[in-house]
């Protein structure tokens, strides 16, 4: 169903971090932008169709004055698409970068505990939400022009480090996931309000996606779970991978889901809702093995899900696959 296409070479290899691949397809420019984290910098690459004319940039996690001898490791880099502009958001141990460095807000708890930000999503057409190691979710208001980004709200529901955040406009707007495996579902109007809380079952939820009111969550025990966004009812469990899942992605126009894990596999699934019963269904479509690679990021490269890309720990390229 899919065949391997030309890889995008990277200047440096990808790190073992959750959701470590961000893809931005620009249809009008016939270009696809990729971002992945390597050690202390972020690799950016852009590729034209067919993998020709690739260009690279490397972003250092620069923190400004007063830095010790250790550089700060970025945790995640993600393209955020807002109606007015597209931003690249980087999180690290020291803070959050949205082209302009926002120093770390919240607890000044340094010292004994790791302090970092992780989990990035654009929401409701005007917010950027970023998770933190303390479990707080910071909501930033982004104006359509200028650099005056303000912290509009802090969501305090999670007790463990945030792992991933996802959004979709609909009955539910935002889903946040944490290290313990708990999920929170939010609605955004002027402020965010908690709709549902889905309890953990003992495994980290490393990646979460939202589609048509269905939450897809990937866990450390290799399982994918589907929940109803309103109410939080469990609708499906899939023993999908033999190792820790690192990334999920959804193709919004078709309901295709992909999962990437440390077991070297990318699995492609199809979500649907039965018109008679309203039950959520999931079927397996395709397996792809990236030999000897623990995958850390995987994304569809177009909204129909006709092509996808993946990164792996220590792998100095982005592997790509396209539908035959």
């Amino acid at each position: 169903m899919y065949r391997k296409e030309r890889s995008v070479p990277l200047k440096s290899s990808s790190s073992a971090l959750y959701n470590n691949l961000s893809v931005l397809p620009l249809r009008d420019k016939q270009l696809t932008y990729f971002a992945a984290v390597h050690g202390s910098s972020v690799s950016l690459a852009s590729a034209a169709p067919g993998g020709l004319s690739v260009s690279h940039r490397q972003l250092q996690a620069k923190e400004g004055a007063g830095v010790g001898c250790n550089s700060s490791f970025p945790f995640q880099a993600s393209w955020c698409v807002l109606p007015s502009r597209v931003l690249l958001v980087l999180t690290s141990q020291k803070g959050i970068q949205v082209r302009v460095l926002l120093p770390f807000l919240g607890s000044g708890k340094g010292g004994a505990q790791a302090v970092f930000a992780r989990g990035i999503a654009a929401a409701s057409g005007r917010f950027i939400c970023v998770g933190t190691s303390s479990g707080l979710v910071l909501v930033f208001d982004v104006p359509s022009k200028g650099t005056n980004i303000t912290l509009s709200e802090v969501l305090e529901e999670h007790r463990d480090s945030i792992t991933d955040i996802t959004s979709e406009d609909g009955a539910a707007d935002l889903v946040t996931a944490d290290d313990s495996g708990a999920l929170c579902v939010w609605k955004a109007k002027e402020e965010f309000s908690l709709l549902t809380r889905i309890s953990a079952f003992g495994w980290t939820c490393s990646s979460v996606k939202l589609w048509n009111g269905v939450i897809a969550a990937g866990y450390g025990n290799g399982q994918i779970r589907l929940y109803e966004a309103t109410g939080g009812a469990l609708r499906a469990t899939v023993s999908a991978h033999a190792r820790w899942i690192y990334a999920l992605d959804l193709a919004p126009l078709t309901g295709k889901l992909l999962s990437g894990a440390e077991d070297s596999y990318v699995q492609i699934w199809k979500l649907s809702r039965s018109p008679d019963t309203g039950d959520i269904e999931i079927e397996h479509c395709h397996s792809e093995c990236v030999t000897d690679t623990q995958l850390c990021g995987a994304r569809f490269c177009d909204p129909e899900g006709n092509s996808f890309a993946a990164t792996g720990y220590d792998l100095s390229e982005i592997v790509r696959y396209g539908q035959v």
Partner: protein
Amino acid sequence: MFNKKFMEELFKPQELYSKKALRTVYDRLAHASIMRLNQASMDKLYDLMTMAFKYQVLLCPRPKDILLVTFNHLDAIKDFIRDSPNILNQVDETFRQLIDMYSCLSAGEFQLIRQTLLIFFQDMHIRVSIFLKDKVQNSNGRFVLPLSGPVPWGTEVPGLIRMFNCNGDEVKRAEFTNGGNYISPQREGSFDLYGDRKLHIKFSIKAENAAPNPLAKEELNFLARLMGGLEIKKPNGSEPGFRLNLFTTDEDEEYAALTRPEELSYKVINIQATQDQQQNEELARIMGEFEVTDQPRQSTSRGDDLLAMMDEL
């Protein structure tokens, strides 16, 4: 190496060591004994150590297993020093500290520790002959990741899809083939002071018995075999001890030193240099603990040599 002060320093929450810092600690540890290695042999020994450890961290089925790897190492060390009650106490004390500090961490926190360790090892693809021979490493330096065997404790063998209605009743089941060839796990390994760790990351050199092979013991055996070219030089002047050459001849060693690719050179930092870095001061203080004041013992067997080295630290 297991003395209280050094362990206290190690257990303090701190950032990941830089490559230079770790290499310096390693050099001082090795040289704090009667062992002497020149640059090429030291490089080779360090390469072997880092690649072996990278392999173990990378292939841990669950993040918490990195703790089992450490326990495996300590078990092997205890085996070597079982006749020395003082050292045995120190190692047991270290064991207890590890259990205190780490047993209550969640899987997610262990995964973060593992991801941080993996940053240290990123892009290291040094080929180790014993790994290549055992097909554990490819000729391009990357480790082989098996697609079969038992899944980690707590994971299900991939293949089953279960779907539920809004009342929570299972209404449909489906199966799929995931591509691998996995089986159910056996018992979970023990995290106690004593116990069967049940963690067998495949790395056996020779003796493949039915009994489990603690990984670290194999590494030390390997080192002892490499030390087959051991010669105890007569002390002349102030520098007694033996010189360890990890190559087959002295000429090979010199050649390796000359032809080592630039990017693989470890630039060992000079602790004596007056740099205004707090971390260097910390390290210098720790290094100070390692001064060997006693005369090295003469011993009869190779195993005792290793023991002697460990006792001096």
